[in-house]
């Protein structure tokens, strides 16, 4: 049957073009791959190749014609044994539609939310461990180490890799004793090559293992951010659910002390931005332990943001055979009625200290530790603000597009009528981290700033 040669789309955005030149004439024989015409798009002149073999029966659009719409028939190709007489019928058949039928009635997922009086959410307030459970003091460092060891004992596909994790036992001694117990097959020293070993970790997860990739600090993890986002976070979606990435990226995050601009950065907001990742930033030792165990078991890639200053801090940790904390459940550290202070990670030290000092002045602050930033427990925050009508957020990261900004926006959407004052975000200052001791202090947020913010929103 005679086939029509159609004006081709030659770029992702082309809708029409100029048929600049014919390189064949009627009666010429062509075979697949022969260049038959030159077509100008908005960007370039492209060569147009024949797909099928045959004889050019008729040229329908003359060279030099501008504004030829994509999919317009431009010539008719005859197969062996056909004559130009066959052309009429071929040319009469309608040109195929360039785009498939779109379903105009399909419900739009992007429909804006209608403004309506929000219902008070009912957050999960169950305790993290059963009442009466024995607890004992443990540092965050010991808690993370215990979580790793317990999960490695439970699942032989769990392994840890990173710089200095094995023989040196961790630059911050998180992996102490693991090489002795699990051997070099499962506790693996890598060369200094974050981009490469993060990618190998992702590939190993594709291949059925449960890698824990340690970055000596998250500042070095930035070398590997492409693998974390493009390879780990997106593959489940890009594969239509066929391939996932069950693994943990972990290490100390944020400012330590006097280590300067390149070693002092909080990645909470960076990674919380990414669909496909789960993001955890624990404050206490029990949370570090319970959340890391959940992270290692999670079938998705988890970014686990620790803090060097918190490593040595002690907290009560329950003595239980298998203690985990679910993602997406905030912890209320202190109940209060006058203001809600929302924080996570090391920000909690300022939040708790501020609440204690404010209590001395008769201001009752409710302090919420988000614990996980993705998923984020919006309900606990909103229910609290509906009670206190005021909110201050606290984090060490930079102010622009911060977690605090996101909480503020959510409160505007879901609890606007309950707010008696604008939400204030206490954050790190909008500067690279300075080295000088006094400047470094000024660059971070502080208990004094949190107290001042609370006084502002409570007008006291």
């Amino acid at each position: 049957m005679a086939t029509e040669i159609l004006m081709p789309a030659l770029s992702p955005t082309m809708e029409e073009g100029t048929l600049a030149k014919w390189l064949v004439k009627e009666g010429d024989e062509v075979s697949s791959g022969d260049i038959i015409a030159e077509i100008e798009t908005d960007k370039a002149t492209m060569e147009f190749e024949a797909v099928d073999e045959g004889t050019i029966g008729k040229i329908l659009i003359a060279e030099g014609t501008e504004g030829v719409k994509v999919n317009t028939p431009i010539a008719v190709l005859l197969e062996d044994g056909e004559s130009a007489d066959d052309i009429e019928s071929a040319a009469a058949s309608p040109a195929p539609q360039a785009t498939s039928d779109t379903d105009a009635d399909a419900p739009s997922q992007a429909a804006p939310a209608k403004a309506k009086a929000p219902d008070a959410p009912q957050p999960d307030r169950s305790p993290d461990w059963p009442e009466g459970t024995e607890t004992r003091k443990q540092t965050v460092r010991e808690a993370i180490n215990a979580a790793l060891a317990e999960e490695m004992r439970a699942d032989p596909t769990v392994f840890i890799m990173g710089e200095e994790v094995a023989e040196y036992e961790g630059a911050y001694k998180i992996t102490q004793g693991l090489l002795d117990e699990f051997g070099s097959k499962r506790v693996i020293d890598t060369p200094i090559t974050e981009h490469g070993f993060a990618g190998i970790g992702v590939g190993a997860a594709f291949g059925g293992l449960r890698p824990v990739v340690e970055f000596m600090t998250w500042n070095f993890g930035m070398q590997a951010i492409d693998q974390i986002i493009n390879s780990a976070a997106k593959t489940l979606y890009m594969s239509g659910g066929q391939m996932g990435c069950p693994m943990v990226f972990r290490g100390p995050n944020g400012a330590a002390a006097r280590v300067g601009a390149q070693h002092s950065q909080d990645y909470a907001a960076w990674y919380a931005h990414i669909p496909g990742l789960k993001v955890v930033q624990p404050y206490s030792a029990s949370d570090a332990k319970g959340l890391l165990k959940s992270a290692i078991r999670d079938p998705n890639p988890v970014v686990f943001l620790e803090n060097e200053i918190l490593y040595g801090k002690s907290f009560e940790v329950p003595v239980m055979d298998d203690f985990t904390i679910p993602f997406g459940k905030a912890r209320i550290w202190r109940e209060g009625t006058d203001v809600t202070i929302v924080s996570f990670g090391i920000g909690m030290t300022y939040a708790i200290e501020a609440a204690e000092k404010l209590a001395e002045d008769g201001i009752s602050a409710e302090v919420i530790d988000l614990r996980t930033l993705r998923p984020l427990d919006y309900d606990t925050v909103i229910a609290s603000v509906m009670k206190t009508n005021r909110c201050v957020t606290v984090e060490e990261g930079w102010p622009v597009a911060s977690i605090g900004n996101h909480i503020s926006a959510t409160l505007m959407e879901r609890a606007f009528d309950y707010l008696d004052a604008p939400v204030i975000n206490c954050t790190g200052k909008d500067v690279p981290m300075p080295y000088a001791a006094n400047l470094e202090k000024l660059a971070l947020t502080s208990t004094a700033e949190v107290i001042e913010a609370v006084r502002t929103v409570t007008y006291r």
Partner: protein
Amino acid sequence: MSARKTQAKPNVSADELKQYYRDMLLIRRFEEKAGQLYGMGLIGGFCHLYIGQEAVVVGLEATAEEGDKRITTYRDHGHMLACGMDPKGVMAELTGREGGYSRGKGGSMHMFSKEKHFYGGHGIVGANVPLGAGLAFADKYLGNDRVTYTYFGDGAANQGQVYETFNMAALWQLPVIFVIENNQYAMGTSQKRSTSTPDIYTRGAAFGIPGEAVDGMDVLAVRDAGQKAVAHCRSGKGPYILEIKTYRYRGHSMSDPAKYRTREEVQKMREEKDAIEHVRDLLLSGKHATEDDLKAIDKEIKAIVNEAAEFSKDSPEPDPAELWTDIYADVAPQNA
């Protein structure tokens, strides 16, 4: 048509030759059809065709055993067809339809098949190289003797993470074959203008990784080199590099006017070096097949490709609810 001397290859059977002919022809006709559907606006975005490079994947797939893994970059249609993925599912992914391998959510550059151990389709140049080494790491950890074919181009060979991976793959003796598909152009930049060494595989020597250059327009040469590489990896000796010198006939992607090389250069490759014509000559001159036999294969392939094209047009667009699925897993799918 082929000006190349065809050597007698005692180690190939008529059936094998016919299979290679068929597999390469399927890729070429599929890609031509994909180009046509792109021209009609049915395929959008970036679409990188494999035409010219068919012997690379067909030759190497001839060396693979069940359970071996493969991973590549964005010029991935040929790899999927060669490892046995369904042309209908691949074409329907190109048109962004529900019947596609990723249910329309991946597109030309992002397809996967758990069943065929095909681990993508990756769009960031060089990023699939550590991923491939990671797959090999998993196999070594699990104590099986599988190998991973990790394909990348001459362009990717200049990315830093490739050499980070070479180092670790050699250090840990990972069973990974690094397949450099050297088609001589990193998009529009010729190898001469971008790469300090004429033979890229020689860079492996710095890491103690053996390798060799292979004529990528000769499917038998590719297969023979592949067998050597596979034997090396499977026996626990660590990685191997195959630099396969090949050529792409079409532009980098559909919207590439290809002004960085002459029409004569492309035409010369097509006329003198074409991998499919080469096997066709071997079949006819060796009296392994008649013109009619080959015509029958052509017809069969045409039918498969037309069926894939029809399927890809008829398959519906994904349900709008698909926008919100597959962001998080309840169970890791590869462990399910």
